[in-house]
């Protein structure tokens, strides 16, 4: 069960980030040229691989209780951010994440930017693609490393992320447009719930508490987080209507 949770969480979180990275790479490639955009993508991928290669083995040297405490706390803070935004979107307090609108905004900015050539590349296109992929990729690297190291299996978490990467890349090449049909808001809701679940579980374990049934309690924590999230959406919707 924990293995399935681990792979599913890494897959969902990575897919969301890769869809966002794809939008930026497409916007950069179509407006500023594919050479600069793909070079930015490749450079960011190398930088991310270096970060994972250095941090991955380093994390395995930290005692598991300390790791769970720190990672649990950080994941919880990180997961609650996702969940909070997802709940505010679902209850109408925040506008839904729209890849088509983001793509239109990115392409308009990229078209307006001045042309500056460095190292034979259009510098705006290169940096737009590099920064976009690096920032979205850092979130993936963070999730894969923290999930993997605390559950003792970085390769399994990386497998989830790898499947997401291949899937988004193949679909991206085929459609050559932002993946607007991906239910991104629903996926973000699911990722927020999973990050919060793992964060709650590991933070308590790291603080020295023992869950009844150990890892078997994870589905119950997830059920609690999901129930709490749906209740919050319902309460906020009612609150919004009352103040409307």
């Amino acid at each position: 069960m924990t293995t399935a949770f681990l792979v599913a969480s890494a897959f969902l979180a990575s897919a969301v980030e890769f869809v966002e990275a794809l939008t930026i790479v497409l916007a950069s490639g179509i407006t500023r040229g594919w050479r600069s955009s793909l070079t930015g993508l490749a450079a960011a991928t190398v930088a991310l691989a270096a970060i994972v290669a250095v941090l991955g083995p380093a994390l395995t040297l930290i005692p598991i209780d300390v790791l769970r405490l720190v990672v649990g706390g950080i994941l919880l803070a990180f997961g609650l951010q996702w969940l909070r935004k997802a709940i505010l979107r679902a209850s109408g307090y925040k506008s839904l994440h729209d890849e088509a609108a983001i793509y239109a905004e990115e392409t308009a900015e990229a078209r307006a930017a001045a042309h500056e050539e460095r190292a034979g590349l259009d510098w705006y296109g290169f940096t737009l693609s590099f920064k976009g992929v690096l920032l979205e990729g850092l979130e993936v690297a963070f999730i894969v490393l923290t999930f993997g190291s605390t559950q003792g299996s970085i390769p399994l978490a990386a497998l989830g992320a790898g499947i997401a990467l291949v899937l988004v890349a193949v679909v991206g090449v085929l459609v050559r447009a932002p993946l607007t049909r991906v239910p991104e808001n629903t996926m973000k809701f699911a990722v927020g719930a999973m990050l919060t679940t793992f964060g709650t579980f590991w933070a308590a374990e790291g603080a020295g508490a023992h869950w009844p049934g150990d890892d078997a309690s994870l589905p119950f924590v997830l059920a609690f987080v999901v129930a709490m999230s749906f209740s919050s959406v319902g309460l906020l919707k009612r609150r919004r209507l009352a103040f409307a």
Partner: protein
Amino acid sequence: MRRIRAFGQFWWDFVVGDDWRAAAGILLAISVTAALVAGGLDAWWLMPVSVAAILWLSLRRAADA
């Protein structure tokens, strides 16, 4: 100096985000759990209860804003 500040700001935004009170609440909940465990009480239940309270308070702040 500017780069160090930008680096710190990046990690602050990445982990803490736009509601520092939620992050502070998490820190407090972990500390109280650890203190209760050290005192002999297996307070595994405190984290989920705290998370529910922290989330709801954060949502209310955002909705009021």
